């Protein structure tokens, strides 16, 4: 009887969380919203695994909503490009939902639990939609839903710190500007081609083979809008306050997945659609994305060094890491795009783990976690601290962690493209990452104050350790991540070379 549902798996991974979110929104209970979310996300994971199975057989699934054929109806596309991210998304969301329960209970009024998990599922569903959609306007819808859910969740952090309201408002305004840019671009594209479906768009755009100003303007609008949403330097300013003032549980989800899904769509748009104007594409990649990535890497790292607030520090580090990803994507060849995907997957785990650990510290410390407040935490909370240490070493990119694998493939890609200056910059910036990370370690283990170890909550540190162990496993056995990334790059780059 499940077969009926399984045929609709591509739609269900998005629709199921959205539907359930409406159901639990007004549940006054403390625990039921969480339990229902967990069940939903288990189903979500099951559906994702089913999709993986289907993809490994057929290689491509186009799901047509309401059986309307693609150029007219909305369609989802699942292929080698997004299946890896879909799977990681499913797993990570489940783990972070497990993690979130105790954290949410500490940070928000328990009567808001239903609302929080309703928004949580809304964010999950819409972010998943971004991964799967094959329709540029549909993407805009998902962008807006995810933005609204995120903003409300960030604002829930106001119980802890009133600045969360400002952060949410910032995100609202800047996010709206980004979305507006994007939708203007979509308007241009629709006016010129009369289609919104990405596959059809490629076909329709081919009639303007030498390009037209309106098309280029539309493309530029779309790209800038997405850059704002993906927090690519210098339009990243909404990100640090949003990450650092959101409730800790949601920071985890934001940091690990929110920008990653948009980056994924960004690169798909570049290499699937805009590829038909190679001169425009290489102009954008070489003179916009490439220099901005380098700036992001350098400036993000340097600002992170001067942060006192740990969550802000991690947020600026994220800016730099997004820079690594966009640097890889600006390389226009298979090795570059593959290494970008490697880092999307690896960095989601690393930053997720770091934010989880720091989020737990925030609960324990009952205030914002600054460098000073971490004094002696290494002895006080050894289990969580050790997880934080491993995630941090992975962020630096030491061998035996997955951060090293990212760095290895990024270096390889840069080397084959003979970008020696970028190699030097990446090397310097990873050395600077030691500086900001070691400031944390020094406070945790080498301050004068001594503490006895205290009990830690297994419901919280187990999810953290699941992420941490996966970081080590993917550092030693990197094949799954490499395979998925190569698959993604195969699908995207084959279009480029033809």
């Amino acid at each position, binding site marked *: 009887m499940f077969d009926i549902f399984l045929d609709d798996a591509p739609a269900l991974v998005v629709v199921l969380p959205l539907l359930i979110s409406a159901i639990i929104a007004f549940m006054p209970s403390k625990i039921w919203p969480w339990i229902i979310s967990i069940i939903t996300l288990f189903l979500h994971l099951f559906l994702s695994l089913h999709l993986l199975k289907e993809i490994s057989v057929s290689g491509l699934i186009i799901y047509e909503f309401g059986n309307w054929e693609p150029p007219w109806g909305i369609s989802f596309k699942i292929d080698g490009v997004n299946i890896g991210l879909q799977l990681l998304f499913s797993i990570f969301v489940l783990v972070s939902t497990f993690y979130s329960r105790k954290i949410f209970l500490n940070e928000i009024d328990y009567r808001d639990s239903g609302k929080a998990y309703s928004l949580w599922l809304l964010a999950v569903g819409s972010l998943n939609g971004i991964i799967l959609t094959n329709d540029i306007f549909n993407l805009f819808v998902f962008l807006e839903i995810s933005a609204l859910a995120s903003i409300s969740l960030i604002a829930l952090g106001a119980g802890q710190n009133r600045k969360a309201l400002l952060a949410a408002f910032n995100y609202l305004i800047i996010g709206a500007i980004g979305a507006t840019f994007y939708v203007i671009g979509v308007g241009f594209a629709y006016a010129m081609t009369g289609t919104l479906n990405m596959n059809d768009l490629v076909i329709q755009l081919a009639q303007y083979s030498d390009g037209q100003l309106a098309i280029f303007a539309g493309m530029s609008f779309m790209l800038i809008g997405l850059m704002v949403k993906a927090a690519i330097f210098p339009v990243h300013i909404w990100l640090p306050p949003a990450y650092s003032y959101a409730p800790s549980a949601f920071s985890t989800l934001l940091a690990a997945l929110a920008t990653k899904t948009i980056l994924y769509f960004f690169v798909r748009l570049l290499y699937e659609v805009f590829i038909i104007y190679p001169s425009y594409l290489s102009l954008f990649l070489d003179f916009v994305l490439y220099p901005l990535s380098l700036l992001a890497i350098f400036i993000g790292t340097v600002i992170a060094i001067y942060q006192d607030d740990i969550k802000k520090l991690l947020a600026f580090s994220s800016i730099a890491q997004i820079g690594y990803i966009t640097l890889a994507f600006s390389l226009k060849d298979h090795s570059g795009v593959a290494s970008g995907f490697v880092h999307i997957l690896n960095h989601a785990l690393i930053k997720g783990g770091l934010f989880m650990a720091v989020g737990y510290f925030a609960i324990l410390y009952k205030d914002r976690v600054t460098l000073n407040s971490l004094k002696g935490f290494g002895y006080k909370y050894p289990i969580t601290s050790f997880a934080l240490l491993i995630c941090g070493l992975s962020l*630096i990119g030491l061998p*035996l962690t997955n951060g090293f694998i990212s760095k290895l493939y990024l270096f390889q890609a840069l080397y084959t493209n003979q970008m020696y200056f970028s190699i030097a910059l990446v*090397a*310097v910036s990873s050395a600077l990452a030691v500086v900001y990370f*070691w400031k944390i370690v020094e406070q945790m283990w080498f301050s004068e104050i001594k503490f006895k170890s205290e009990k830690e909550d297994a419901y919280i540190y187990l999810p953290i350790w699941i992420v941490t162990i996966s970081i080590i496993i993917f550092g*030693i056995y990197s094949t799954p991540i490499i395979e998925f990334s190569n698959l993604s790059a195969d699908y995207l780059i084959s279009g480029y070379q033809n």
Partner: protein
Amino acid sequence: MSNSFLIILGIITPLFAALFSYVCRYNNNLRDSFGIIGGLITFVISLKIFHGIQNNEVYQITFFTLFDGVDFAFKVSALGSIFSLVASSLWILASIYTIGYMRGAGEKNQTRFVIFYSIAIHAALAIAWSGNLLVLFIFYEILTFSTFPLVGHKQNAESQSAGRLYLSILVGTSLIFFLPAIFWIWLKTGTLDFQDGGILMNKFPAEYLSFLIAMLVFGIGKAAIMPIHRWLPAAMVAPTPVSALLHAVAVVKAGVFSFLVVVVYIVGPDFLLQTKSSDWLVWLACFTIMASSIIAITKDDLKARLAYSTISQLSYIILGAALASSLALKGASFHIITHALGKITLFFCAGAIYVTAHIKKVSDLKGMGYKLPLIFFAYTLGALSIIGVPPFIGSWSKFYLIMGSIEREFIIVAIILGISSLLNIYYLLQPVVIGFTQNSKKEIKLIKAPLTVWPPLITGLGCLVFFFYANYFLNNISGVIVN
């Protein structure tokens, strides 16, 4: 016992020593004994492997594949067998000495100290036996991180800033230069395995080789070549057992050992000799030798003086590697042993003087020679060995290095080595001269710490005795370095 099992046992023994020290942290004597026991076990294993290498046995073990062409594997090379023998044998003596020093000086946090001490030895052994450059790099980093708590042991402002300097220079250089160099080698050859004669020949563009050598020598910051030497004097704030075993033997030797391994097993001496890509490094090493000798003369603090002396002596090894002729490489490899023995003696003595008389400065040593005759005797033996006076073991390595530089027709280098020996005489023997000739009016209360006296006497006498058994070590070295 199978050969691969020996490697595993040797590498994890120090970790178990650390674990047991932690478990028995409430019983001081038991806790401190694990360093000695671990030292004995690893020493026996290293000795067995050392002999096995002489008999052409193969010691290797592969755990898993990290990425294309690079495994997580250990394989003992001839050079590695020497380094592990030095590190493990001196660990026994250093453990005994640590007990005397730490208790005599009343240091806090002794448990943490012995734990990280053992972990550092673990990393040093793993470096010695690593099967490829990436495994070496992994344990190189572990060595840095594990010695950080030892450098910052006192946890005051001075040791904290020294610890930061230590970490930022060592980790910074390794991430900026060493790791990219490793990637570069991997991208060009597809492997990182150590092979006799090197792996770069015909695969790496000869015109970029000097650049690669520069990335390696500056990336391996532990080799302390100028201008990347500042961390070593800074690290001297650590308790003396750390300076003795780690910053005269394990850490710095891990640095020069890494560079030697790269020259011998990755680049290949023949390739270097053909391209002459390391000739510039000869001059940088000479500069470091002279400059740090001159700085050493100006230092009144005994440990700081010894630190600059170490920098100068490490550059002997870099010099030998850069010359890359068979005699020079022989001298450089042998210098790992001779300098380790000599320098650990000197540091042991400096620490013993500090514990018994609370003297740190050379100028305060007036008349101490008569009060601490055994310590001064041991110090003199070590100093003479480092200067290179026969019949001390240090004369062999210096001899080979001078021969090597003449072989490569670098006559000026041979002269510089001679001048450096003269400077050595001045700054290393000055404390002895002051100790025995001038008289002090100050009454100094002496504390008895016999456990700090015997280790330097043993190593000092070792410098003398092993002069006659030099061939025992040289057999292993010359077996590999065949041009």
